[in-house]
């Protein structure tokens, strides 16, 4: 009985230690980061980079994971508003459904910073994005180049494997990609979604399509982790690196590895580190309600542009196309070499 009691006491003590947040002596305050999910590498790395960069400028970050559930993220927003943090960094699960929560937070005097996922239908205090539609544009440019190199002109068959069809992130990329590809009627696009961003669903799509349409020239997957399953499916069909051109987006480590192995031709990177660094650079200005001036800013070496939009100040950081030629550059977050230099706030 005593042993059980001791065990219980120890468990409660351990739980208490786990629940108590670390004390930051010189913290300017707490910033809550609403991460949409922790099931992909971009998001997990966004947690560590935001935590590191915001700590550089004096803020403590508390992360809440919404598990890709809109209602959960809405509840988290409501709870966080009651805690009156210095600011909320939001990577919205659903771009529209979170609008009332953003407005509620701002009405309560809590600045809201949109991270990675741009919300244009309401005012935010700051937005740091690469632009999901723009990722589609970059991908379209690369697809055109690859098709031209292979077929002499922009013609051929493209299989586009989307993420979950209820995720606006993937729909935006699709919109950007198809908008730019529309100019080339000889390029046929077959678009199919991998439900819940689940890798084996992407593998299934690829293995079905490669049998039904053996003349597919290029496969474009909306996340690097989907391309791993796609490669496995191609391998199972006897394909070798280079037999089918592959492209994916977000710049995760798996994508970079596949480039090195010769399977993936292009990975369109979301500049995660720069996006997170921009949040830290402008955090003081946002929290102290100081003016953010439009113009060019250099964020981790990337020339970025702040514009005043109808939804508030917006910094757009250019995404990059990663190929075999530049895959090892440290600036790509997929190489997991977060910049060690301290971030300094914008004057």
């Amino acid at each position, binding site marked *: 009985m005593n042993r059980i009691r001791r065990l219980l006491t120890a468990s409660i003590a351990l739980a208490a230690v786990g629940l108590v947040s670390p004390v930051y002596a010189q913290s300017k305050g707490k910033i809550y980061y609403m991460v949409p999910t922790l099931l*992909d590498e971009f998001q997990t790395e966004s947690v560590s980079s935001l935590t590191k960069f915001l700590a550089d400028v004096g803020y403590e970050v508390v992360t809440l994971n919404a598990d890709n559930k809109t209602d959960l993220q809405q509840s988290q927003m409501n709870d966080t508003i009651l805690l009156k943090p210095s600011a909320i960094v939001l990577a919205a699960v659903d771009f529209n459904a979170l609008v009332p929560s953003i407005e509620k937070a701002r009405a309560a005097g809590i600045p809201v910073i949109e991270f990675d996922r741009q919300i244009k239908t309401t005012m935010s205090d700051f937005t740091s994005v690469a632009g999901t539609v723009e990722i589609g544009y970059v991908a379209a440019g690369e697809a055109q180049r690859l098709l031209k190199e292979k077929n002499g002109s922009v013609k051929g068959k493209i299989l586009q494997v989307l993420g979950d*069809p209820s995720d606006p992130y993937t729909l935006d990329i699709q919109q950007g990609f198809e908008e730019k590809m529309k100019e080339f009627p000889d390029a046929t696009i077959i678009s199919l979604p991998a439900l819940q961003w*689940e*890798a*084996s669903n992407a593998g299934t799509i690829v293995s079905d399509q490669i049998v039904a349409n053996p003349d597919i020239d290029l496969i474009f997957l909306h996340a690097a982790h989907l391309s*791993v399953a796609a490669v*496995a499916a191609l391998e199972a069909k006897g394909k070798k690196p280079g037999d089918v051109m592959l492209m994916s987006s977000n710049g*995760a480590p*798996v994508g970079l590895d596949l480039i090195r192995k010769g399977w993936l031709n292009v990975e369109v990177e979301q500049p995660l580190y720069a996006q997170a660094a921009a949040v830290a650079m402008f955090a003081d200005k946002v929290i102290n309600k100081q003016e953010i001036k439009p113009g060019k800013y250099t964020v981790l070496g990337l020339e970025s542009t702040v514009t005043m939009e109808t939804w508030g100040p917006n910094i757009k950081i250019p995404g990059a196309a990663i190929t075999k030629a530049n895959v090892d550059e440290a600036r790509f977050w997929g190489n997991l070499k977060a910049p060690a230099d301290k971030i300094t706030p914008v004057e």
Partner: protein
Amino acid sequence: MTTPRQRATAEFVLDHLVWFMLAVVLIIFSAFVPNFFQIGIFANIVEQSTFVGVMAIGLAILIIAGHMDLSVESVAALTAMITGILFCSRGIGLGLTLTPEWLVLPVSLLIALAIGAVIGVLNGFFVIRLKMNAFIVTLASFIWVRGLVVAISGGRSAQDLAPSLRVIGIFQILYVPLIAWIAIGCFAAFSFIMTRTPFGRHITLIGGNAMAAFRAGIKVDRLMFIAFAMAGAIAGLAGWLLAIRTSGATANLGIGMLFHAFAAVVIGGVSLKGGVGKLPGVYAGVLLLSSINTAINLMGLPAHYTQVIQGLLVLAAVLLDTLKLQIRQRFA
């Protein structure tokens, strides 16, 4: 008045209804869906049935036994992730190698089976010993095991599985990869166990009426423990196969498969009330769902239709189950 011949025919049709449905669906798709009618597509259907199929075996056994296991999907994800972490060479993979190299195969399989069995035993302990509700216990496992997957992976993925394991996903016999043959083998083995061994017959009896089975001298608790461990181990096998197919693991691998497995079990004729059901029917259910999924892929329809069709199929299966009972009574 029905003749014995008519009755036998009706019984046969009712017992194998899902196979007839599968045949009809395949004929319709072959006739109307472009590029569907070819060996490669049929091989894909069989291959894609592997994971949900294997997962559905354990689930079906427990439902036949009068319980259920909602944790199978997360258990599969956990064993896939552990296989990935141990035997993948990139991402969070540790790239463990063994000498001789082929040892990776039995060792990784044993690890996956053992992890699955441990979680199954844990579920069994709460349900059998502590008399807790199986739905709640396994729902809790569904949640905490998935949480464990995220925790041990840190949300990152493992890729580039050891070639000695990948070969199972690539090597083909009659156009069908070895992993699919493993699933077929599992269905054959467990169908035999469920119909031709005292264990299987007793499990079915327990599902029909646990009290009557107990009074007949059947060791109900012991057999239920074995069934839970078995369901866990089979889910572990599904995860191992999943890791092989995707050449690694991501934290969200297998997400949503529980519902497909459940749908397959119900469509396959397993009664949720327990005591009724045959594993070949479950396999037909899995093949049916996989065929529909493939046809939707080929037609380029939005994936939402798969979910709508699956939902309607489950509803139809339950309706048929009720109708079957009435038809049987009429022929009796």
